[in-house]
Each structure stands twice: as C-alpha cells, then as structure tokens.
C-alpha cells in the first residue's frame, strides 16, 4: 500500500513504524516558541533541568515574538525579556518584535522547508502544510521537551483527501472564500484529529499566499494539518534561501490509503463570511448584507501577506473608508511591510484613511492593535471569531476584499455586487 504525505514525512524523521494509530518518536528539524508560551517553555526547562539547562541544538531552536509586538504591558515585556536572556546565553536566535508572525518568517527565511518537521507554541503552525512541511502547534510542555531532546511523541493520524472540482475562482472571489466554504462543508470537527491533503485545478493554480490562507484554517476544521503539494516556485524559493538544490516536494503515492475522499464543487463560488461566534458559522455574504460595520481588521497569519493587502488596496484605490469606520491593517512580516512601502501600497492605504501598524499577529492576540468593544461589529480577515477572542464585540471572518468593501460601505456588502454597480469589474 502507498503512503500519504504525512506518512512519508514521518518516515524520514523516525525509527519507529509509521502506521496510522501508532505513537512514534518524531525527530523535529526546527523547534520554536513565541512570546505566548515561550516564557512557560523556559520556566519548565529551568524547573526540570536547572538554570544551566542546555537545549539539544541551538542552531535548530528559535524564538519568534509576534503576539504582543512590541510588549504593551509590563508582564508581557518581562516575559519577552526573560526569553531573550535565556536565548542569548545559549546562542539561540530570536526573531524579535520587529520580525512579524513566526510561521511566515519561517517560510520567508527557510526555517522550514518542504518535507521538514517544525513545532512551536503557535496553534496555527500547521500553516506550514502550505509549503508541504509538517508544522504543529503544541503546548509549552511539549515545546520544552522538543527544545531539550529534539523530539516529540506523535500519533500517526489518518488522512482525508479533499478534491476541489469546478473552475477556479476569480477576483473579487479569493482563497479566503474557498477556505470558508470548505469550513462550511466540513464544520469545526470535520477533520478532527486528521491530516488533510488538498487537490484540484484550483489548488494547482494557487500562489503561496493563497495556500497559506487555506492551510491556516485547517485548525478551525479540527485538523492536524492540511498539505498542499509545493509548486515549482515554492521549491525554488526554498532551494535559494536554504542554498540547497536537493530540496524536493514530498508527494503522496498514487495508491496512498485515505480514510475518506471528499469532493467539493466550487463552481460559482460566492463570497463567504463566518458569522459570530464560530468560524464554521459560514454564510454567503449576500445573506447578511446590510449589517452595520464599526471596524475592520486586515492581517493575521491567515490573510496578512503582501498580496492579501494588495487585494484590499484595489478597493481603497477607488474609495475612502466610510467616516466612523475604523480600519486596521497589519502586515504579517517586516518583509511584507517593506514591499508594501516600496510599492506605494501604504500610500493608498494612508490616503483611504486606514491605520497601518508594524508587523505581527495584530487583532488576534491580546490586541497588538486594539480590541473590539461590546456591541462593536468587526470584519476580520483572521481565523477565529469566538466570543472574546478579538474583544467583546461581534467578529465576522471574511476575505481582504470583503473586509475592504465593508470598510468603504460601512455595512456588510457583497463585493461582486458592490464592484459591478460601480463599474470596477
């Protein structure tokens, strides 16, 4: 019997038998902790191994400060500095508060690569499935253990194959709409404890930023990770940044064994929106049109790439933010921020009346760029709208395009209708 992607990656990283249901010891190529969880990782290492504790391999170990960047309260500042001191003494590199979201930095800098294994305290690290790597968010005990030993235990999950059928979407429909539509079909438990592999013409056509969006919300489907076979461009990126021409994609065998094959027809995909208070409470945008909007957040590990923000700028190029609506844009990384700056996208955002902040997790993590108040309706391009996650208000999840047209209209509107009426498409 053939092997799935996760089975193939695991086989290269363990001495144990890789079989669905088996618990194996997995070698971890890259071990990371962010400023949420990181201090607890260090505390546990001190607690169990003493103040002189050494990590398994400092070159494979990183801190990525992205949640409260820069620290806005004294406890957060203390926590970050506690990690910095630990790292400095041991020669561990810190991607500090200027860097941006750890998972995105990992892709840009080649801390992960197709076929590699990567763990950290960010529950959306399975985003690395977008480049065919195994990434996994874990708690601080697991991560402390990985820092110390370079290993983790893992139960080999079954894999679900999801095949998209129908013609790929076109602007103003985006990868976020496909992602929310998939979540709508699967629900919050549809992939619980499972790996996913995504296939179809639409997947083949997707660029990196679109793959990131889809893989990032596998967490909200309950899944372990969602793999997409890297295309030539992605492989070339990692070969270049790692200076390693031997990097190849890990591809599932033709006769790999899947627990389930799900076909999703995406012909005539309409703009989608996840209504409060759960990410899988997805509707067509047109079903909730007219809901007044108070604020908009564009960014996060799901939609914080250059291209995501450029999509929003296509709207803001023509229309200003409606008076009374607050719009916040947070680029995912410093590299993204720099490109937005140099390409003039920040000018467009500024002129439209948008607040732009330094890179990081933005609205998702304890309010780097503010939270919502009771009764406030927010459109967010992030991945979770649970009660209290981004404040006391009601959060709707949508694409950067939907978010931008809502910012301009001051209410929820379908971008297809909105842009057609104004002759933009």
């Amino acid at each position, binding site marked *: 019997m053939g092997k799935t992607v996760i089975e193939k990656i695991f086989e290269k990283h363990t001495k144990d038998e890789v079989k669905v249901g088996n618990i194996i010891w997995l070698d971890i190529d890259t071990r990371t902790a962010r400023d949420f969880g990181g201090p607890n990782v260090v505390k546990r290492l001190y607690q169990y191994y003493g103040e002189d504790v050494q990590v398994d391999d400092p070159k494979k170990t990183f801190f990525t400060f992205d949640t409260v960047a820069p620290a806005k309260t004294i406890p957060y500042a203390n*926590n970050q500095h506690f990690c910095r001191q630990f790292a400095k003494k041991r020669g561990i590199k810190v991607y500090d508060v200027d860097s941006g979201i750890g998972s995105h930095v990992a892709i840009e800098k080649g801390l992960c690569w197709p076929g590699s294994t990567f763990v950290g305290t960010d529950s959306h690290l399975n985003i690395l499935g977008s480049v065919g790597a195994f990434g996994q968010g874990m708690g601080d005990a697991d991560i402390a*253990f990985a820092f110390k030993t370079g290993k983790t235990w893992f139960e080999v999950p079954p894999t679900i194959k999801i095949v998209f059928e129908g013609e790929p979407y076109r602007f103003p429909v985006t990868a976020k709409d496909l992602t929310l539509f998939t979540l709508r079909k699967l629900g919050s438990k549809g992939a619980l404890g499972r790996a996913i592999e995504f296939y179809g013409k639409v997947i083949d056509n997707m660029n990196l930023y679109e793959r990131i969006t889809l893989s990032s919300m596998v967490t909200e489907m309950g899944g372990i990770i969602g793999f997409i076979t890297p295309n030539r461009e992605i492989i070339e990126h990692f070969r270049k940044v790692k200076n390693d021409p031997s990097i190849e994609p890990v591809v599932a065998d033709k006769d790999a064994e899947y627990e389930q094959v799900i076909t999703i027809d995406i012909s005539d995909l309409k703009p989608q929106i996840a209504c409060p208070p759960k990410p899988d409470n997805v509707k067509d945008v047109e079903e909730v049109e007219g809901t007044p909007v108070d604020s908009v957040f564009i960014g996060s590990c799901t939609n914080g790439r250059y291209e995501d923000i450029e999509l929003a700028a296509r709207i803001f190029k023509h229309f200003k933010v409606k008076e009374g609506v607050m719009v916040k844009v947070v680029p995912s990384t410093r590299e993204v921020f720099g490109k937005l700056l140099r390409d003039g996208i920040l000018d467009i955002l500024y002129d439209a009346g948008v607040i732009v902040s330094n890179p990081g997790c933005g609205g998702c993590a304890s309010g780097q760029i503010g939270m919502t108040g009771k009764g406030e309706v927010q459109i967010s391009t992030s991945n979770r709208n649970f009660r209290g996650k981004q404040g006391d208000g009601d959060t709707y999840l949508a694409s950067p395009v939907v978010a931008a047209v809502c910012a301009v209209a001051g209410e929820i509107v379908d971008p297809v209708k909105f842009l057609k009426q104004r002759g933009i498409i």
Partner: protein
Amino acid sequence: MKIKGRVWVLKDKNGNLINDIDTDMIFHNRYLAITDINEMGQYALDNLEGWEDFSKKAKEGDIIITGENFGSGSSRQQAVDCFKALGIALIVAKSFGAIYKRNAINSALPIIEAKDIEEIEAESGDEIEVDVDTGLIVNLKNGKKTYAKPFSNVQKEILEAGGLFEFAKKLDV
C-alpha cells in the same frame, strides 16, 4: 485505575452539552502573561457563558463532563493547567481538540473520550466512576453505564510517571 468523583456537566441554558468549548473560553488570552500555575485556577472557564463562577464551585477531585471538540483553538497549556490547579481529577468529553489532548496527557491531567456520554444521563452533582483501563463509566446515582476509549499506553505511562518530563527520564530520547 478507577477515578471516582462528583461531576460538573457543562450544559448550556437549554440543557444541552456544550460543544466546541475553545481555549479562550477555558482560559482567556487576557491572562496569558500568567506563568505561575497556582494563579491559573481562579480563571478556569470564566469566559464560558453560564460557567463564569466555576472556579469557586469546583472542589479537588471533581470530574468535568463536556461535549465535542473540547479545548479547540490555541495551544496554550494554561487551559489544561488551570484545571490541574483546581485539582480536577478527570475531564470526560465526547471528543477533544488535538492540541488540547496532547497538552493534557503531557501534564498528567487525566482525560478520556466518551462519545456516548449522554447515555449515563449525568447531572451536575452526581457521582460517577470511571475505569480508565476498560473505559467503563458508571453514574452511581442512577446506575447507567457507557464506555469511553480506554487510555493509550503513552497516556498511561506519562500519567503514571507524573508528566512528560518525569516520563522522559526513563527513556532514551
């Protein structure tokens, strides 16, 4: 091994078991600067509608019964440790979020999956007994039974060792 205790059944105001209780409902992100386990118990479930006062009601040795996908969301260990701080003896859920499950096992917080837990018709305050080796769950109030998925070997070994790090000392990893 058997675990016996008084249960808290996490139901909504309509009397249904709550599904998808996420880590922000269990231990909200506004408390994430806390790294001392002794401070965590007081915030357990304080962002779950109807259960805000849980930490005041719960006693050491109590058992929690909850619905599907308990602990979905973030990777924060505090969402496990807050229950350890309160001395919760066991969490029985219809299913758990994947990361939560690992965190609980690593911290030696006993958790068990019982997809048909409604069969024992438990109400908060009932006493139940759970045999984690066979999976048998009995509601001692009404005698009704159901079966959970027994503990895996890794889970048992880490629990017996008292956590992942104690367990690791015995291994060549």
